[in-house]
């Protein structure tokens, strides 16, 4: 029974404005199995998944559900139990949690909604994930991670045979990922097929049975996940040998560039934080969601108001009350949420690059030629894959968008860069390139980095020193050899050695 093929695609081809993005891809998904689909941005993963769930019609090829040839549309796919959770969240912010979960499938009786039943069912799902969310809360009040969990619950609350998840974990904490995986495994046992797209190869290794690797729209591997190492998977994805992912560690000087003394947030998210950053250092900030990392950084760059405390730059107290003053002082911040805070999708690529430094290109009128020259310069240096400088940022892949945002920050001539989740939703190759860019900047320009990340390997691979935060406080500083998974997790969760940690 478990060998039954529930969903398959034969010879799938896809063209977007006469550019072929999928070439004769064959895939088969069996019942009760967890599949991983990996590939670089632009490899065709999302396109393939959207075809298999009816959101796109293939230019050529056939889709089968339980060996029946089908022509899917989203509604038909849903009724057949094929459900896609897209990368972009599709929740209605102004509706409540339970209303979102039952959106389009409201439980009703004689035209009236049965609210109580919907709330109860929602509560059951929330409990199953160990989520402490009140079903009647508005979605707008949830954190990104909580929203992601609600989206997942929404999908699995339906009759589901095949669940396709496009990067479900990119905004989840380790703890929440653990919970999600538990649910995925129990779904598998109950006969559901789960297709899991992720850039995090560690997760792919730990959860999937079978693996499909796509590269440039072609299937380059299909088989058991356990037969490959993470490195081999990455090499299949990029089609060449992978150098060491992380650059050599920088050598910080004795000089203190940025110092924070007794910083306290006005809204109470953190209290009494003090730390120093040395020139050419990469200082990591690690902590669970809600530990106050991002809030701290946003306070340093003047987006949030501080209640008390001092910020010193090169030994002098500075007053930062707006992002403008932070920029003028040479502090640049890469926001964690690229699409809402980093890049302006409807602006042309070069305009994103020059947005923070327009005075460099104008007295009164902007010199567009110079702007474009500057963009091309970064395009070459950072390997930004854009056809022209005029290409709208929304048509760039995630990794290239992130590189554009980085070019915007570098152009300001900042000395201190605060990178919040710099590689979220970015493929291995772009990740490697972003690390290289950081390394290059430290060596060539002598700049300093603060890296906030919930990805442990990234923190461990990049940082000279890591500050761990919990509930708005600094609970530890780890240096050099001590920077390892165990130490960081113990500090971040507050568990002692010997306590059991599930995650």
């Amino acid at each position, binding site marked *: 029974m478990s060998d039954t093929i529930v969903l398959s695609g034969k010879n799938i081809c896809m063209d977007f404005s006469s550019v072929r993005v999928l070439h004769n891809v064959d895939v088969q998904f069996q019942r009760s199995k967890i599949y991983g689909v990996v590939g670089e941005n632009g490899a065709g993963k999302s396109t393939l998944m959207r075809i298999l769930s009816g959101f796109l019609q293939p230019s050529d090829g056939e889709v089968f559900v339980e060996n029946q040839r089908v022509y899917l549309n989203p509604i038909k796919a849903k009724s057949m139990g094929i459900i896609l959770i897209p990368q972009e969240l599709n929740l209605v912010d102004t509706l409540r949690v339970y209303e979102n979960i039952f959106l389009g499938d409201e439980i009703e009786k004689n035209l009236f909604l049965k609210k109580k039943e919907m709330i109860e069912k929602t509560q059951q799902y929330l409990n199953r994930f160990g989520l402490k969310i009140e079903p009647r809360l508005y979605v707008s009040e949830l954190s990104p991670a909580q929203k992601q969990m609600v989206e997942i619950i929404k999908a699995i609350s339906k009759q589901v045979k095949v669940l396709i998840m496009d990067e479900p974990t990119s905004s989840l904490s380790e703890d929440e990922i653990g919970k999600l995986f538990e649910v995925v495994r129990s779904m598998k046992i109950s006969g559901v097929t789960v297709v899991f797209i992720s850039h995090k190869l560690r997760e792919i290794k730990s959860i999937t049975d079978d693996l499909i690797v796509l590269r440039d729209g072609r299937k380059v591997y299909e088989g058991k996940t356990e037969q490959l190492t993470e490195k081999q998977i990455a090499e299949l994805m990029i089609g060449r040998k992978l150098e060491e992912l992380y650059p050599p560690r920088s050598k910080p000087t004795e000089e203190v560039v940025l110092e924070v003394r007794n910083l306290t947030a006005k809204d109470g998210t953190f209290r009494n934080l003090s730390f120093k950053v040395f020139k050419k250092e990469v200082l990591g900030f690690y902590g669970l969601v809600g530990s106050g990392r991002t809030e701290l950084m946003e306070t340093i760059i003047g*987006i949030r108001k501080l209640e008390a405390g001092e910020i010193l730059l090169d030994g002098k107290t500075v007053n930062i009350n*707006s*992002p*403008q003053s*932070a*920029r003028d002082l040479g502090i640049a*911040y890469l*926001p964690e949420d690229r699409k*809402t*805070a*980093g*890049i*302006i*999708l*409807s*602006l042309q690529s070069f*305009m994103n690059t020059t*947005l*923070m430094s*327009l*005075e460099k290109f*104008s007295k*009164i*009128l*902007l010199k*567009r030629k110079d702007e474009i020259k500057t963009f091309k310069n970064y395009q070459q240096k950072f390997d930004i894959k854009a056809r022209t400088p005029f290409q709208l940022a929304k048509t760039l892949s995630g990794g290239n968008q992130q590189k554009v945002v980085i070019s*915007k920050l570098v152009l*300001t001539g900042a000395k201190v860069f605060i990178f919040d989740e710099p590689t979220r939703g970015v493929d291995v190759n772009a990740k490697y390139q972003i690390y290289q860019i950081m390394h290059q900047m430290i060596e060539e320009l002598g700049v300093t980095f603060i890296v906030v990340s919930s990805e442990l390997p990234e923190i461990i691979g990049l940082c000279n020193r890591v500050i761990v935060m919990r509930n708005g406080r600094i609970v530890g500083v780890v240096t050099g050899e001590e920077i390892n998974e165990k130490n960081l997790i113990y500090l971040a969760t507050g568990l002692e050695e010997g306590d059991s940690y599930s995650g």
Partner: protein
Amino acid sequence: MILIAAKKTFRSINLSKYLIVFILIGLMVFSGILSPAFLKPRNILNIFWQTSYVGIIAIGITFVMIAGGIDLSVGSMLALLGAVAIQLVNKFGDRTSSVILSILITYAMAMLLGFGIGLLTTKGRIPAFVTTLGGMAIYRSLVLNFANGGVYMTMSQKYTSMGMKFVLGLPLPMLVFIIYAVVAYILLDKTKFGRHVFAVGANETAAMYSAINVDMVRTWTYVVSGISVATSAILLSSMMSAVSSSSTGNGFELDAIAAAVIGGTSLSGGKGSVFGTFFGALILGVINNMLVMLNVAVYLQGTVKGLIIIGAVILQNLRRE
């Protein structure tokens, strides 16, 4: 099916940017066939002239809309500023210097009002729809109150000769409209301020993180709108040598917004152009003129206008993939 076919055609001939010009030409040819008098130079000049007043205001509103706002107060503000200009001229006497002084004071007042509405909207965190709706009511009521519902008139030769002046054979309002459009185009497309307007309207959060003072950029778009209204108010009141407290500027806000929208300006911000608005305004002008020339029943003219506006926007949407 027709929509899909139309979509393909438009994509293949990539006339996206100039689509609006073709629509205008198409409308003019159409009108010319139905009524040959339409294409007489005198009539074309008249259309251009009559369009100038709303057109100038529409250009200002384009800035506001691209930054993600809306300005409903422009019609009432036009009456208020026109009345102020006339009263000042009457007070200062019929000299060139006093006309100039009156105009300068009118502009100063317009900028102040725009700045005030802008601050109220941004710092006060009140939706622009509400603040400018309030402005619309307040300005109109002030004009009505001080004129007791009547008309503001001026006998100043110097002032009234301005509005009827021809330069190089072209009516002054039309020339001002064209020059104003060019200057506005440069401001929007070639300056830091213009770039910031787009950024703020397209993604407020990202603009804030990019060290752009979002509130100030938005506020200044209302100043630009105020300046546009003042320009139009001066041209209109000097041409008419009067401002009616009850009817001058009525419905201008809707025509101005319609012109911007026909020209491709997005109601949700981040998109638009002076080029588009300029031709959008002319399209509206042609439609108005055509309806009169073709003897369409007065009460039905609104229906035709409405349908054409909606149609133009559908075309705009088609050319987006």
